[in-house]
């Protein structure tokens, strides 16, 4: 039961952040280029994602033996998670601008306003393509998280439910508010998701080393409970890096 809840929460939170970013793009296109084009692009992206998920999930689950799957998925998740953690550390240390959905929305609407206006079959190509690309790109990250977590937990349907619930919440809020979800603590959520992905990726990739031909297995002390320890360790290291990098930035500013 605990594992199911953990999987639901993990995929919900990770997908939530991605859906918020996709919503900003769709809203910007809907407001400036028309809702028919924005929603058509969104539907096209969702259909493409469904096909992509089916093929990728089937390929991973059937072509790789269990231990190799754990290693490959673990490595991909670890690299992906550490990318997020790296950006969160840089933002917290003041070395990278905080993600701002308001600014993103303004930039998108300005660019959309400047683009030439045409219609084909009642659809504005610019609004359609930007919505399609935005939803597909953000959605691919959701698919990646759902598949990696779902396959390793042997419960892809629950992972899908978590992500779908996040989508429903974001779409509902977006439809009700008609504006980007700027009050969502996105940078904090991205930090938390980065920690989670890095910790799970660390756990699975190391345990997956037994897939190496001739290698003996590695096993984390305490089994699955060690994931909590890994989260604490990655959190501690990230706080240390934030402090060191922030101090280095301050000293560089004083010197210059």
């Amino acid at each position, binding site marked *: 039961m605990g594992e199911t809840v953990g999987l639901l929460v993990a995929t919900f939170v990770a997908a939530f952040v991605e859906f918020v970013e996709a919503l900003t793009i769709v809203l910007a296109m809907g407001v400036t280029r028309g809702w028919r084009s924005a929603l058509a692009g969104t539907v096209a992206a969702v259909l493409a994602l469904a096909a992509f998920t089916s093929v990728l999930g089937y390929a991973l689950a059937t072509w790789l033996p269990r231990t190799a799957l754990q290693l490959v998925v673990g490595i991909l998740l670890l690299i992906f998670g550490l990318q997020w953690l790296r950006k969160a550390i840089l933002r917290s240390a003041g070395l990278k601008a905080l993600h701002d959905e308001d600014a993103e929305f303004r930039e998108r609407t300005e660019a959309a306003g400047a683009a030439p206006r045409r219609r084909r079959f009642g659809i504005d190509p610019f609004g359609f393509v930007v919505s399609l690309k935005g939803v597909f790109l953000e959605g691919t990250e959701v698919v990646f998280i759902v598949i990696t977590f779902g396959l390793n937990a042997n419960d892809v349907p629950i992972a899908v439910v978590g992500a779908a619930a996040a989508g429903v919440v974001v779409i509902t809020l977006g439809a009700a508010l008609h504006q980007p979800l700027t009050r969502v603590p996105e940078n904090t959520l991205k930090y938390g998701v980065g920690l989670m992905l890095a910790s799970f990726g660390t756990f699975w990739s*190391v345990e997956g080393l037994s897939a*190496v031909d001739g290698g003996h297995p590695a096993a984390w002390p305490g089994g699955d409970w060690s994931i909590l320890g890994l989260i604490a360790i990655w959190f501690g290291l990230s706080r240390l890096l934030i402090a060191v990098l922030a101090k280095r930035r301050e000293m560089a500013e004083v010197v210059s």
Partner: protein
Amino acid sequence: MTALRAIGRFCYDLVIGDDWKIAAAVLLALVVGAVLAAVTTIPAVALAIVVGVLLLSTFTAAMVIGTRKQ
């Protein structure tokens, strides 16, 4: 070829992102771990801890190197 290149670029951006040093750090630590798994008989728990420490170290190095000029 253009479509293939675009797909390849997309996959690269999705997995590796904008800093290849992070991916390199992960692969370095895991390759060392795989070598240890193949040629040594250290206990499974010790192997996990060693590789874990390697991952933390290589990630830290990648972060420090990547922010040197900032």
